[in-house]
């Protein structure tokens, strides 16, 4: 999978993962404080934050695996810098990354329009929710409450990760730092 990648793309992937690992960790603390008050649903509406690196990396680098790898790396780095969720976070990263990656795979890694990015956000929300359902024992909760949780997480994934990721990447494109990556090249061809 990595054969066709340029080294600078992999390093970019790692650096993005580092930056967002810090962001992710900050929001874990925000979420934790909330969760004491209003229960696990506190995480749901900000959940999209934790998918954003997948969307940004895939949108900029445009290679198979970018969405998956960036999320797993961000999770691993998050664990290393002190997330007490510990090794489980890597599992979470793998599962979320697969969900986001699926959206790009389905479109043959050819389309990176807003709707695909939002689909990726939704995909990550769906797989991560399946994980939460098993590990968090959501089977014990009333179906309406579980449905509300999922609706919140899916919306958050589509808006914060999908739309937010696109806005952030497009702003970065305007700084000129992305010259030499696929996003900038594709932009020139079509525009």
């Amino acid at each position, binding site marked *: 999978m*990595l054969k066709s*990648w*340029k*080294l*600078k793309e*992999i*390093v*970019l*992937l*790692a*650096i*993005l*993962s*580092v*930056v967002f690992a*810090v962001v992710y960790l900050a929001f874990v*603390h925000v979420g*934790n*404080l909330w*969760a*004491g*008050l*209003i*229960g*696990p*649903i*506190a995480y749901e509406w900000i959940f999209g934050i934790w998918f954003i690196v997948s969307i940004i990396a895939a949108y900029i680098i445009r290679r198979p695996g970018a969405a998956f*790898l960036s999320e797993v*790396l961000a999770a*691993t*780095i998050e*664990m*290393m*810098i*002190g*997330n*007490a*969720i*510990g*090794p*489980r976070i890597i*599992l979470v990263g793998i599962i979320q990354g697969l969900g986001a990656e699926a959206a790009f795979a389905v479109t043959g890694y050819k389309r990176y329009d807003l709707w695909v990015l939002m689909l990726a956000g939704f995909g990550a929300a769906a797989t991560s929710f399946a994980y939460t359902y*098993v*590990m*968090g*024992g959501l*089977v*014990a*909760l*009333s*179906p309406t*409450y579980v449905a509300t949780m999922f609706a919140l997480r899916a919306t958050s994934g589509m808006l914060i990760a999908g739309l937010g990721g696109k806005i*952030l990447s497009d*702003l*970065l494109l305007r*700084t*000129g*730092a*992305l010259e*030499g990556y696929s996003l900038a090249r594709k932009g020139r061809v079509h525009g």
Partner: protein
Amino acid sequence: MTFHEMNPTIKFLTVTLLMFGLAFMYNPWTPLAVFIGTLILQILFSNVNWKRWGLFMIPFLFTALGTLWTTLVFGKEAGGEVMFTLFGKDLTVENVMLASTLSLRVLAFTALSLLFTLTTDPKRFVYSLMQQGKLSPKIAYSVFVGFRFFPILKRELMQLYETHALRGVPLESRLDYIRHVPSLIIPLLAGSIRQAERIAFSMEARGFTGEPRATYEVVAITRYDFLLASILIVLFGVSVWIGI
């Protein structure tokens, strides 16, 4: 024989396996036993800073409490004898058992996580993933780069604050610093991306190809790794038995 010396990949797999197993246990005694057992193992086979352990644990106590009352209030209807009424909802023994199971599960998960996190050197973990887990060196070394990137990131951030200050942005209190983070994200990321490109070039200039390479540090697997892994699995087995 300590958890610090244990092979990180084996430790990772064992701890993850236990957590996964716990997810299918629906009685409060199993997670409680795992929590206490993990704590005892941590005391016996590791040398950790307990103040740090406590600091990591505190936020999860809140999460556990949140889980407890959410499951009580929004829990599924369950049959059985009503124990007491909370917020106008009749709670049965079943409800209370479920809520304490999920709440204790949070604590057991955290104790297991800390058993891994507080005894694992990140560098050894990545080496071990590369040596035993067949992780691509391209990724492994990019993680190392990423890890080394923290001081650079911090310096860049400070520099951005200074340029802001030069332009007359008031930066007096800590709150000012936090308030200006959103306007710094784009320049910070743009700077990081440029740095990434330079780092990649210099890696290539030094002959890094991404092929498997000889390493100075070899993370081996010894029989102690299997012994410690077995102890953890026995702990889980005993906890399941307690729950029956």
